[in-house]
């Protein structure tokens, strides 16, 4: 554990001196948190908002509104779309950190001296994964907390905040989020084994957000309804994906593979 902690601390000391990484970790959550709150505020201050009906909302979504009026349901719909952004953060941030962390070391040839120490590849990979996952998860949770407080202050009624704290979104943010972050790191490791530039690795690894974007558009168009069932299935699927991608990542992160096959 001492070595894993040392590796993670070294990663944070080094990677966060990179302005681009710092920007991604700090600015992205800020945007994801502020944007929906601005939209919510704009909706509330819009003349005639209290008379809005639910006719333009997907019928499947209306069933989730329960006893909410049109304005409340509309705000809840907007909030639901932005909630998916809090699942995007744990995908995007680790990809950035891990890409700069792994490909950066490959470019500067700092991995070989580390591999020459008695650290195991599992310790090394775990340290790098923690260094990428922890900031992402903390930023996501902090952003969600701020968003929840902001929604409570800005939204039409407390019913909307109550929906935010629904098991669906709590599982999505606090369970599924970390699982997404782990998957992102594993994908970044796989891509980094072939990439020679951190920015290329980052851009290729960002493809990992595509499935989530598909869910987002599906929800917006009414094709997909994010409910407890879907979130639970996604959580189970991510456990399987994390396990498989982790095993591949560990295999790619072996000493001999890194020294002889990583380009």
């Amino acid at each position: 554990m001492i070595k894993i902690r040392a590796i993670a601390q070294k990663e944070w000391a080094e990677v966060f001196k990179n302005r681009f990484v710092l920007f991604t970790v700090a600015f992205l959550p800020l945007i994801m948190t502020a944007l929906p709150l601005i939209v919510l505020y704009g909706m509330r201050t819009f003349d005639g908002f209290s008379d809005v009906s639910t006719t333009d909302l997907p019928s499947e979504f209306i069933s989730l509104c329960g006893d909410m009026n049109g304005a409340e349901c509309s705000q809840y719909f907007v909030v639901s779309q932005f909630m998916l952004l809090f699942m995007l953060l744990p995908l995007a941030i680790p990809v950035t950190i891990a890409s700069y962390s792994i490909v950066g070391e490959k470019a500067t040839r700092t991995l070989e001296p580390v591999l020459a120490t008695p650290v195991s590849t599992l310790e090394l990979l775990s340290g790098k994964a923690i260094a990428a996952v922890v900031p992402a998860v903390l930023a996501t949770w902090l952003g969600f907390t701020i968003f929840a407080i902001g929604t409570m202050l800005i939204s039409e009624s407390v019913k909307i905040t109550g929906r935010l704290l629904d098991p669906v979104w709590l599982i999505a943010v606090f369970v599924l989020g970390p699982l997404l972050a782990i998957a992102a790191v594993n994908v970044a490791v796989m891509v980094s084994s072939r990439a020679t530039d951190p920015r290329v690795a980052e851009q290729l690894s960002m493809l990992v957000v595509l499935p989530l974007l598909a869910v987002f558009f599906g929800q917006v168009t009414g094709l997909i309804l994010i409910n407890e069932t879907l979130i639970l299935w996604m959580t189970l699927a991510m456990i399987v994906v994390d396990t498989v991608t982790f095993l591949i990542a560990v295999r790619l992160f072996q000493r001999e593979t890194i020294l002889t096959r990583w380009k």
Partner: protein
Amino acid sequence: MIQTIELTKRFGEISAVENLSISVESGEVFGFLGPNGAGKTTTLRMLAALISPTQGTANVAGYRVDGEDDEIRRSVGILTESPGLYDRLSAERNLSFFATLYEVEDVAGQVERYLRMLGLWDRRRDEAGTFSRGMRQKLAIARALLHEPKVVFLDEPTTGLDPEAARLIREFIGELREQGRTIFMCTHNLDEADKLCDHIAIFNNRLLALDTPDALRRELFDRKVVFHLRAAGDDLAQILLKLPYVHAVETMENKLVVTLDDPVMHNPEIVRALVDAGADIQFVGEVRRTLEDVYMHTVREPAKK
């Protein structure tokens, strides 16, 4: 301290190291020379337990390669071809990190010790990226020694350094030898290898020659002594040719170049013969073949040893 038996490494169809059998004694400085792409770094990586051999065996510091790799990594230090330092971290932070990975007990103490030893203590809080090439190399050497390894692998320790920095590194290597550490050094600097190494192996995917520098010279080249005279002539050459231990004499302007087996034993007799013949000897010196001569001859005309 290091022993290999038919150590081989292949990457697919390509044979990087073929049937290498060497033995390095404890406290020795062992030079491993060869052209680019000869497999020196591959050999070094196998011995440092970074990659596994395809065939053959090796023991380093009493531990078996590809069987007791963690113990080997605890017992050896390695200076890689590229220093591989974290440019955005300070010198102190760089070393502290590696000291932790090497399971050093007194991290702060060892870091201070080696920073002071290598003259980097005053720059300990500066980022490694601000260091000169020589300082980076010293820092990388400090990193390789933090855990007090019995065996130190050095891959091109003075490449790219200015003469003063290179000299400091060579002196430091000498100090390491005096401490009883075993040094395994890959280098292209033949003069450095000649000065530092107890034994030298010349390698090009397979072992071409292995011995002390002087023995390699004697084996490949005759020993020649140059007598600088005020005036040299064929008559003096004929006198020397009558001596039983003289193989050949060349006359070059005012010099006689005498080929013989043992100059130390026979130089006094040759001097007496020349003086008795009326020659004025200005000075005497041996034609010393360089290690470069040995290397070029061996690499161009490989002969299995």
